């Protein structure tokens, strides 16, 4: 099957700045008039309901945690990602299957199981791994927050009773798996230290190096204008040359 569209993924630990950068990447491509779509981990409506319940009741175990996040991804894959790729568009995924490998893998779900569950999701054309030292991302997340969420901190694994200590252990494992994925060439390491602008400039450079946009059809300017207009209030007077006729 011919590979359609351009699939971009961003990965990294919480607090690595990847979501901010992914959105900037999205706005940049959109400003070029390209058909681009942005989607986030754990955002499919019906599945989110179930995930929320599982988290609130602390009932999720590594395997059900794995399955339910895969359900979210599968829903977005068939409803959003694949259809956009199908017509040659660009999709930016804020977290992709490597997040499952890192998080579920840290929860001792075997790598083969994770690979098989996500076997329908092809390798992206570019996966940027936003690498910051564990201490930096830890500070960004932990600073000013009285408490961490149960699953966010990996408390379900029972490593320790201290949420902050548990979070540190969890992030250490996640970071190790990401590093392995970098070594395997599945994801590309990007230095995510520095200001938002500095990192964005690195993102664009890496993007340009790996992605050829020449095959992507630009959306006609007339369509973009019409679309903008259709979403705004129309001041008829300014369209009618000022005489209101």
């Amino acid at each position: 099957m011919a590979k359609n569209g351009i699939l971009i993924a961003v990965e990294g630990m919480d607090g690595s700045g990847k979501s901010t950068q992914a959105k900037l990447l999205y706005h940049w491509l959109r400003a070029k008039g390209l058909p681009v779509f942005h989607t986030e981990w754990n955002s499919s409506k019906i599945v989110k309901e179930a995930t929320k319940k599982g988290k609130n009741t602390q009932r999720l175990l590594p395997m059900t945690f794995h399955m339910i996040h895969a359900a979210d991804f599968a829903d977005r894959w068939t409803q959003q990602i694949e259809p956009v790729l199908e017509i040659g568009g660009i999709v930016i995924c804020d977290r992709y299957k490597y997040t499952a490998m890192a998080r579920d893998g840290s929860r001792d779900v075997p790598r083969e199981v994770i690979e098989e569950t996500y076997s329908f999701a092809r390798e992206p054309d570019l996966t940027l791994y936003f690498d910051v030292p564990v201490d930096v991302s830890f500070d960004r997340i932990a600073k000013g927050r009285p408490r961490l969420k149960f699953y966010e901190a990996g408390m379900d694994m029972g490593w320790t009773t201290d949420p902050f200590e548990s979070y540190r252990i969890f992030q250490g494992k996640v970071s190790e798996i990401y590093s392995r994925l970098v070594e395997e060439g599945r994801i590309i390491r990007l230095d995510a230290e520095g200001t938002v602008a500095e990192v964005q400039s690195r993102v664009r450079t890496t993007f340009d190096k790996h992605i050829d946009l020449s095959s992507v059809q630009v959306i006609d300017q007339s369509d973009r204008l019409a679309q903008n207009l259709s979403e705004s209030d129309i001041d008829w007077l300014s369209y009618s040359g000022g005489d209101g006729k």
Partner: protein
Amino acid sequence: MTHAGKLIVIEGPDHVGRTLHARLLSARLKANGIATHIIGLARSELMGEIVKSRTADIHQLNWRTRSLLYATDLHDQIKHEAEPLLDAGFVVIADRYTLTPRIREEVRGGDGDWIESLYANTPDPDAMIVLHAGPRRLLNRIMFGERLEALNHFESGMDLALSTSITSSFLQYQKILRQEFQKAGKKSSATLIPTRHTVEEVHDKIWDSVRPVVENMLQPIDGN
């Protein structure tokens, strides 16, 4: 992995008599001194409520998402109920297990091997029974039960566009399902039992195939 208990799986389409026979089997085992527990589709603490209250939405989902939601549901029951109880020596009866979630997506074009992989780490059944009946018999039961108006789009296979009539779609859909259940049942050396006979006769057949598995656990009602 070996458990002190046993896992008995009863599979088959809706209205075939699965749930009734799971309950009868459970009652008989209990009378013979064996603790039992019944699991089944959409019964988990985690997913049961959502699956039941959002049935129509779930039927609208693509087969992959639906498969993953049902896999989550079953894994929740396996980890929280089946495995601990099997370890403790219960007989766990699964009123549908991994066959139904696979077959009903396969007939809709889903990838059976991939769906099977979602259940790779689940306990193997010690005995498996597939109940089957002719489509018209199933439909007659529905009519007699005054539930014809509750027949839904998905369970009648209307999404396969076999017919514009819900009853004739149901008949064609159930015919396909029956063939698939029988094929899969034979492949996994399940006991295939038609439910056209009386409840007692069907139950006795089920008991015949379950008994060897639980033989050394039985504590007869009349003592030794």
